């Protein structure tokens, strides 16, 4: 294993057999299915998958901010404020709009969204919104909060912060907006920060800066970072550990090196193959055949089967495979590796 293992000692958050459903009149969308995932203190975890694979909903369920009509249908989310052996708070049992959960969101957890333009209020200044977060998280008065907010804006690299603080979002550039969003998320000095596609809506040239900023801040604040993205490049740049999602299932979990060097699930393999390699002379783009299933579709057997080249008739079309640990800390949900499991027994 790698050196990164050290960081993954203290468990902070655990998802256990998590199911999130969205009930519409036309039917139920099962956005997250049977998700098991541990998040450790101080680590940076990458959650990767196509859009609609349930990454964001997974993150929202941890923070108790799943939009209606979504709800946790089954399973638990635990939070360990003092490590795995200490106190355990079952987040999935808390009222998401109740006081206790709100305090946790104000002080312990935070999230950065994809589109700062729409994730920030268009009619309030960024200062107003950061100060609000600050005052919810710490017992400071408005003036102190404002001073802190200016400091924070400087820290995330906004020049002339004392002036910019009174700007509206539509007067800021995309990069500056995202920095303001990050400042707001850090206002409560959270233990756990979710970054939901933080660079997707930003100019390519600025993306690297934002990622670097996030990495540095994560170290400074000593927080856990959950980086949600569809972009393996981002994962490679930021994450130490990776979970791959497909159609609501976490299909593979491993350390970064293992994911890139020894991908197991056919979907992960496909993802990695589809990264364009500029060194290769053959510039043909590789993609995974087929499309993501319709949200209402119920697929018999493995959800990836319709797009999988290696699917085995009589096995893959029966039920969704369960999780197997193929090597240490490398989990996969695929029937191709069932024999390995059997061998172990």
């Amino acid at each position, binding site marked *: 294993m790698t050196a990164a293992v050290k960081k993954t000692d203290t468990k902070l958050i655990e998802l256990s057999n998590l199911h999130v459903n969205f009930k519409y009149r036309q039917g139920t969308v099962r956005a997250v299915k049977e998700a098991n995932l541990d998040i450790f203190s101080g680590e940076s975890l990458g959650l990767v998958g196509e859009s609609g694979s349930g990454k964001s909903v997974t993150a929202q369920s941890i923070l108790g901010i799943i939009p209606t009509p979504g709800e946790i249908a089954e399973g638990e989310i635990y939070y360990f404020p003092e490590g795995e052996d200490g106190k355990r708070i079952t987040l999935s049992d808390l009222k998401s709009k109740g006081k206790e959960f709100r305090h946790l969101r104000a002080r312990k957890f935070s999230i950065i969204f994809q589109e700062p333009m729409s994730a920030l209020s268009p009619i309030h200044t960024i200062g107003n919104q950061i100060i609000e*977060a600050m005052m919810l998280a710490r017992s400071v008065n408005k003036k102190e909060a404002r001073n802190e907010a200016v400091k924070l804006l400087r820290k995330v690299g906004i020049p002339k912060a004392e002036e910019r603080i009174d700007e509206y979002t539509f007067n800021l550039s995309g990069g500056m907006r995202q920095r303001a969003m990050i400042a707001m998320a850090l206002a409560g000095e959270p233990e756990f920060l979710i970054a939901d596609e933080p660079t997707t809506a930003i100019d390519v040239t600025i993306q690297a800066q934002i990622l670097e900023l996030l990495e540095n801040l994560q170290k400074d604040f000593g927080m856990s970072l959950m980086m949600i993205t569809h972009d393996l490049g981002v994962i490679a740049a930021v994450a130490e550990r990776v979970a791959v999602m497909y159609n609501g299932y976490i299909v593979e979990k491993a350390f970064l090196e293992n994911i890139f060097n020894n991908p197991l699930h056919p979907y992960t393999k496909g993802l990695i193959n589809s990264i364009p390699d500029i060194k290769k002379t053959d510039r043909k783009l590789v993609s995974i055949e087929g499309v993501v299933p319709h949200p209402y579709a119920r697929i018999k057997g493995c959800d990836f089967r319709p797009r999988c080249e290696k699917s085995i008739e009589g096995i893959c079309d029966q039920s969704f495979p369960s999780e197997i640990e193929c090597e240490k800390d490398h989990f996969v949900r695929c029937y191709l590796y069932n024999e390995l499991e059997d061998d172990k027994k």
Partner: protein
Amino acid sequence: MFFDYIVRRLLIGVFIIFIISIISFFIIQLPPGDYLTTYLAELSAEGQRITPAVEQRIDALRERYGLGDPFHVQYFSWITGIILRGDFGYSFQWNSPVSAIIWGRLGLTLTISVSSLFFSWIVAFPIGFYSAVKQYSIPDYIFTFFGFLGLSIPNFLLALVLLFLGYQQFGVVFSGLYSSEFAGEPWTREKFVDFLRHLWVPVIVLGTAGTAALIRVMRNNLLDELQKPYVMTARSKGLSEFRLLLKYPVRIAINPFLSTVGWMLPFLLSGEIIVGTVLSLPTIGPVLLESLLGQDMYLAGSFVFLLGVLTVVGTLISDILLALVDPRIRYD
């Protein structure tokens, strides 16, 4: 920037008023003939002999108001009279200058319309809020149904039903804006109280359809806003749900709600014309109708023109209000 915005709006407003004045004058000129021809026809129909004296008087009137002149000449003298001297022309039906008739009635029409506007806002806002936040709840369905019903009843019909019920239940005929003993009296405290007692009938009649429409506007806007990512952001900060709703989505959904003045005011003024006629209010409704039917063109034209001006001014006010509460418009 804000100043520029207001100036720009003002200029547009003046331009629109100019167009409206032409349209108003054109429309009332549409019927063939004029009031004096109609008047003469009426006299002879009644079997009266048209004496040279009458003819002379009519010729003098025709001369004075240039009734035989081409359109643009008549328009020009009418509009310059308004702008320079506040002279809106002469009402042949009433035998008096138009300006002596219109202001009091216009004031009452405006009072009723604006009261209905506030009534609609005050009723629609909490209902729309509730319906959006508790979407698909039983009260939401009930409000939605009553909203549809409110939209489907022509306001004159509602006035008739209220008239009938008022008589049947209380033996009172809801009409007019003050009791007969106050008619023609100067405004006193008693008259004002009496006025308020009469005001609610036209306000409810006029306000119902608007309220129904506004509930839908508020509900739909708020539902849209509730889906926006900034709501989730605010939730992720740990803000309490009620404060969050009021500070973000409601605050933003209020803007399109305010901008409904743009169509609510013309809609209410329109309705007031009819309701005023049904309830025989001392407003412009009944007088406008008579003047149109009798081709009393200066009176009718002035009413149509001033109603247009009122809506332009109303829209202007709502634009300024909107810019005050919404920085996006201010900086545009």
